[in-house]
């Protein structure tokens, strides 16, 4: 065994320099590190973000904004210690200048403060926890998707506008769930028939659905991301409540990846999103067609966010030619001078989006379930935390 252990150590030593990168030289491509979830539960989201981002890079033949880039992707397996260690490795070994990719709020809170302090730019393609939008904001942190509350606020506004008076609220018992219901109630001023926090990762909602029916609400708002939402929507329909009590929720539970699993049970449900594949502008048409051609599936919300993250970086690189001058690059990012697939887009003072949030309905196009925009909840909508952000 001594021999074997020595052999193992030697092999490790021999292998490490191979994967170690030399420090970035001026002529080197701009290195972008992507930490995202590629294995286990929830990997569908990370894969879509990565594919959307890669599409933008591939469209330019390995460049963004005319500047060659090197994309380094690694899997965080949805674990915070793995994510922080990866972040450290990408900063120190690969000398990345820009990072992106994280799907989940808790991993973002773990990684973002560390890397932005190290002088790396972080462009969030998904998670936008209130901490990073408010007190914990950073000049080097940008969110190109939304602040976590945004889509819930939009649904609150819509439900308020439609004159519902007695809404039943459901979300998982964790910070994002609490923020979701708080965001909804920031714009919905009517009565609340019930406010229920479910278990994180719960699959069976028979108890909640029975209690809900008993409370006789005139509408239901729910935020249950991932598999939780799939289970809930199916069970809601099986209980015969579809068509009886209208269901509202954020886009996460009605995304292309989820609709394929939920099926007819989601048909007709109204949901809120900052993006949809039928938004009519040149950038979006090119993105939807390009994504389908490259990957053979319809793009999801997450793919659009990954794509926009890359396009935002491209717009800044085009102006600055690189990241060497950080202040110039930051200014270029702040300008957000790119054609977002969602249309009008700009950053608030806390580097979170000011954008239109649409209301969509789940429809059937041929055999495929997808969404159609039916209205607008907000125009130029920012978030509630910008005032807390002191940069």
């Amino acid at each position, binding site marked *: 065994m001594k021999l074997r252990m020595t052999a193992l150590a030697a092999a490790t030593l021999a292998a490490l320099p191979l994967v170690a990168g030399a420090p970035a030289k001026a002529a080197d491509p701009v290195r972008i590190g992507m930490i995202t979830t590629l294995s286990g539960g929830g990997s569908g989201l990370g894969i879509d973000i990565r594919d959307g981002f890669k599409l933008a890079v591939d469209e330019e033949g390995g460049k963004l904004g005319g500047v060659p880039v090197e994309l380094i992707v690694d899997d965080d397996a949805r674990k915070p210690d793995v994510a922080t260690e990866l972040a450290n490795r990408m900063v120190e070994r690969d000398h990345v200048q820009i990072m992106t990719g994280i799907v989940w709020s808790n991993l973002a809170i773990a990684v973002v403060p560390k890397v932005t302090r190290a002088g790396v730019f972080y462009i969030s393609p998904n998670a936008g926890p209130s901490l990073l939008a408010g007190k914990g904001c950073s000049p080097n942190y940008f969110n190109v998707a939304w602040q976590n509350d945004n889509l819930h606020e939009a649904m609150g506004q819509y439900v308020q506008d439609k004159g519902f008076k007695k809404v039943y609220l459901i979300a998982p018992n964790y910070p994002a769930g609490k923020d979701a219901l708080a965001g909804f109630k920031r714009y919905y001023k009517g009565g609340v028939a019930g406010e229920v926090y479910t*278990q994180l990762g719960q699959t*069976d909602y028979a108890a909640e659905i029975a209690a809900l029916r008993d409370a006789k609400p005139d509408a239901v708002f729910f935020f249950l991301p991932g598999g939780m939402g799939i289970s809930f929507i199916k069970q809601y329909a099986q209980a015969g409540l579809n068509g009886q009590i209208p269901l509202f929720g954020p886009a996460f539970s009605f995304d292309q990846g989820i609709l394929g*699993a939920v099926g007819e049970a989601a048909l007709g449900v109204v949901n809120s999103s900052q993006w949809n594949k039928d938004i009519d502008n040149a950038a979006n048409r090119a993105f939807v067609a390009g994504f389908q051609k490259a990957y053979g599936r319809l793009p999801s919300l997450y793919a659009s966010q990954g794509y926009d993250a890359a396009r935002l970086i491209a717009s800044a690189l085009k102006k600055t030619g690189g990241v060497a001058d950080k202040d110039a690059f930051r200014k270029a990012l702040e300008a957000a001078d790119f054609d977002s697939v969602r249309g009008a887009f700009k950053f608030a003072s806390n580097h979170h989006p000011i954008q239109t949030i649409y209301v969509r309905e789940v429809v059937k196009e041929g055999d495929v379930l997808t969404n159609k925009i039916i209205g607008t909840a907000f125009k130029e909508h920012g978030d509630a935390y910008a005032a807390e952000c002191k940069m």
Partner: protein
Amino acid sequence: MVSPLLLLEQTLNGLQFGVMLFLIAAGLTLVLGIMNLVNLAHGSLYMVGAFVCAWAARESGSFLIGLIAALPATAAVAVVVELLVVRRLYARDHLDQVLATFGLILFFNEATKMIWGARPLRLDLPAFLNGTVEILPGAPYPAFRLTVIGVGLAVALGLYLLVARTRLGMLIRAGASNREMVSALGVDIDRLYTLVFALGAALTALAGALAGPIYAVEIGMGETVLIPVFVVIVIGGIGSIRGAFVAALLVGLTFVLGRAFLPGLFELFLGPSAASTLGSALSAMAIYILMAAVLIWRPRGLFPPHG
């Protein structure tokens, strides 16, 4: 005030969830009781069952064909796994089994993702099961959930008869307590174990296929159920089918009634939001509190098997 009707409906929900847990637990407790094998990859077989069912249902357009395909397909996967890996683990201690079957989980999750993609699959109910039945006036109940209860009870009865009344059951019981004696009777014990492992897998596939239309057919679905199912088996007494059945109902009821009524109970003392938070936290812990209490009271579960 809670209406009696709601209480009744929630009790039924608890029983239904319990029966679903029993369906998943039955195969595991069989394998654990007879071969003394801790199979963490049991959840993976549940996932395979659900994915095969969803895939076959999509290709054929029929849930029933999907269900019928899932059982033999999962059993076949199980036989391959048994011959290649599991067979070598029976004589090992539980820790080796834990490590090896943990390896199987990683493999199955990644392989499933490579075959079917990372997005969850769709599994719809046939029209005749996709409605509600008015079991009591004003309380429509999903027809499919009633079907699950029926299937679960039938499986429980079937397993009881199989183990207690048939020659196979006799061999299984004998094999569990005395390997040499069964071998001496001229029975190929290796083949018997392969058969039992495949049977357990088929039961699990049935659970996966029945769970598919209610829950999400996704990567990682096996790990979500694994822990509650182990809780059921341990409360019931390891290896006891009867114990697993009673414990599954107990856990199902605790799970559902806790979530249904604990927040309301706390609302008598606290604000609605705080009550819901606390109630939810406590109901999430409830089945573990139940298990700890049972084991402190009876360290070998409710129905410890003999020997």
